[in-house]
């Protein structure tokens, strides 16, 4: 074959490879997601970000909310660009019923669904309660999964404004573990905000597929739930994460930030790099509350350990919650906490109460009262 023929053949081979690779998929929804939903009132504006397979060809055409087979088309307020990553804004109808909705996006010929990615509340409250659960460890034991189911039932009874899940959702990161976890969390009647833990790094692709990106902010009115990924690398923050945390805190309303972080910042099993500079950043920006898990027992640390002083007094309160589904681990006193969760009360811009709860009764129930 002559050089021209060879070049033509090579060009055809390359073009066929590119076409075969990029043509089948239209787009992927990046935000919102199951783990980072958008929480808003009827009539609010919903930002949607997608990544398209072929920039300039595929565009974000339409979006709708779906719940129990009922589809609510959304009006586009701001069109998307034509680049690889496209963001458009849609209007939620003023008569939309409160609830958790799947987001259905149409881009090009394809359609993509993000499960429970939009939560519509009747109104965004100024005074609310949120619940934190941590270390679900789906796949570790049937008993642990039953404990998570009991916590879910209890939270549905208590009806906090949102549930914050601080990592280690699965034990080994298997897709079926995430499927079971997602099914359990989908039974919650309120929005769920998730971050990954170190165990979730064992099946990173499966975690991202089920729960979406690991970091970013979720807003509840004027409050921000700042989602951090402490399990990158060897349980440490990196320079880029510190930069992103500072930027997110700058964008958030001052003193109205609750940080979700799987691995605590102090202690033997804590974040190794940049922990002190991140704590200093929290202090400087007036972050009132940082929620963690990982240790499988209840604890507090920092200037106001566990909120035992006076939540909302100005110092950052660091709370470590007992495991929800993993094996309980004895704390420094040698005593194991029962599986449970933490309730956090917020009133007019301040964290007013932090209350650990257990679901298995007895044990250290006396210690599980309000820590205010």
């Amino acid at each position, binding site marked *: 074959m002559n050089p021209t023929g060879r070049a033509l*053949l*090579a060009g055809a*081979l*390359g073009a066929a490879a590119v076409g075969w690779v990029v043509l089948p*998929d239209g787009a992927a929804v990046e935000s919102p997601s199951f783990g980072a939903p958008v929480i808003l009132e009827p009539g609010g504006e919903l930002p949607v970000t997608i*990544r398209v397979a072929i920039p300039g060809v595929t565009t974000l055409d339409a979006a709708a909310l779906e719940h129990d087979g009922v589809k609510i088309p959304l009006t586009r307020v701001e069109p998307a660009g034509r680049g690889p990553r496209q963001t458009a804004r849609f209007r939620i109808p003023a008569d939309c019923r409160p609830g958790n909705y799947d987001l259905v996006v149409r881009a090009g010929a394809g359609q993509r669904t993000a499960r429970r990615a939009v939560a519509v509340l009747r109104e965004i409250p100024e005074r609310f309660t949120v619940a934190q659960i941590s270390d679900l460890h789906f796949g570790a034991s049937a008993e642990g999964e039953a404990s998570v189911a009991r916590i879910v039932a209890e939270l549905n009874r208590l009806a906090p404004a949102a549930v914050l899940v601080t990592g280690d959702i699965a034990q080994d990161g298997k897709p079926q573990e995430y499927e079971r976890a997602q099914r359990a969390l989908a039974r919650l009647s309120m929005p769920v905000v998730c971050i990954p833990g170190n165990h979730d790094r064992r099946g990173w692709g499966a975690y991202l597929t089920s729960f979406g990106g690991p970091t970013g902010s979720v807003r509840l009115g004027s409050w921000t739930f700042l989602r951090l990924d402490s399990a990158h*690398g*060897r349980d440490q923050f990196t*320079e880029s994460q510190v930069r992103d945390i500072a930027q997110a805190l700058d964008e958030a309303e001052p003193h109205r930030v609750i940080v979700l972080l799987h691995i605590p910042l102090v202690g033997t099993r804590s974040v*190794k790099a940049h922990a002190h500079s991140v704590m200093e950043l929290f202090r400087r920006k007036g972050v009132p509350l940082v929620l963690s898990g990982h240790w499988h027992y209840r604890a507090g640390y920092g200037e106001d350990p566990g909120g035992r002083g006076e939540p909302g007094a100005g110092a950052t309160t660091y709370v470590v919650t007992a495991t929800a589904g993993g094996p309980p681990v004895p704390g420094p006193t040698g005593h194991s906490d029962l599986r449970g969760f933490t309730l956090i009360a917020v009133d007019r811009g301040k964290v007013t109460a932090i209350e650990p709860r257990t679901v298995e009764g007895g044990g250290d129930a006396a210690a599980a009262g309000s820590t205010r």
Partner: protein
Amino acid sequence: MRLRLAVLQFPLLYCFGVLVGMSVYGVNFSPAGGWLYLIPLLLPPAVLSRLSRGALDRMRRSARILAGSGALLGAVAYRPLHLGFWDERSLAQAVTVAAFGVVSAVVGWLALTQLAARPGHTPAPVAAALAVVAAFLALSSWYPMITLLGAALCLASATALRWEPVEVPARGGGPRAVFLGALSFYLAAELSQVAWDMGSDSSWGTLIAISFLTASALAVAWWFMAERLAAASHPWFTAGAGAVAVAVAGTASAVTAWRPAFVLHPARHVLLGLALGGLIVALLARTTVTASAAAGVQSVWLAFVLGLAVSAVYSAQCEAYPRGRLAFVAPAVLAFVWERRRAVALRRAEPPSPA
């Protein structure tokens, strides 16, 4: 340029893609498949560099088929990753990506042997190839693993190359090969640091693209200036390029150790690009001289792959100690000092000229 692309696609596209994929999405060797990713990285130093001329000739006769199958394997490996996520638990993915890596390494080595056997290179094709590589790295801001597709397309273009039997260059590569290999190792380790830091944020690709573009611009500019200066008796202008590269990259390392946030600064990547450009100039200056000296290109290529691998392991195990990365410059400095001493000793041993 196609030959240079075939040379560069393994270290700069495949290795960056896989090492970054492994570090960003979890260095996970619990499932057996995780170990398969190491095969293509170990293949060049353990097997390819030891092949006889006969074996190389046999492989070269099938080079076009190898490159074509590499392009297809690359497309198969990349397809689920275009909008999806790296699935570190998938054995099927590990087999496909590792098989693609093996073909990518073999074709890269064959192209390198062909390139190294021909003295007298100019910087323009290298600069153009680096610009193409930089384009794929820039795209990785949106499509993190697109460097795999880039490697597959470079292999597709390699099917159009004329693969000829060549003299295998002498091993060792002559004087300064050790120093340039150590410099290549150091630059690879420094370049890949940012990919680890950025984690799942794939904008690291843009920063590495800045380095490659700077390197290609510098290589061209330096070469043309050197041609003019050489006429005015300044041969040190190209001969000293490697030493200048160590100094420039060392500055970037020192500032990063002092202020770790510098790892994200574009200025750091411009400095590393300047150092990489210096390495290219030093290599081109040598390959112009003799074919046997060109064998040093092979050790530089191998050292680059080794640098990426060692840096990834360091990041996974010890990144909490960023100052420890300064140790990566030590082999280059030691090799430089050793080679200078050896050159001085050889000069002293030479008999005085009759004049």
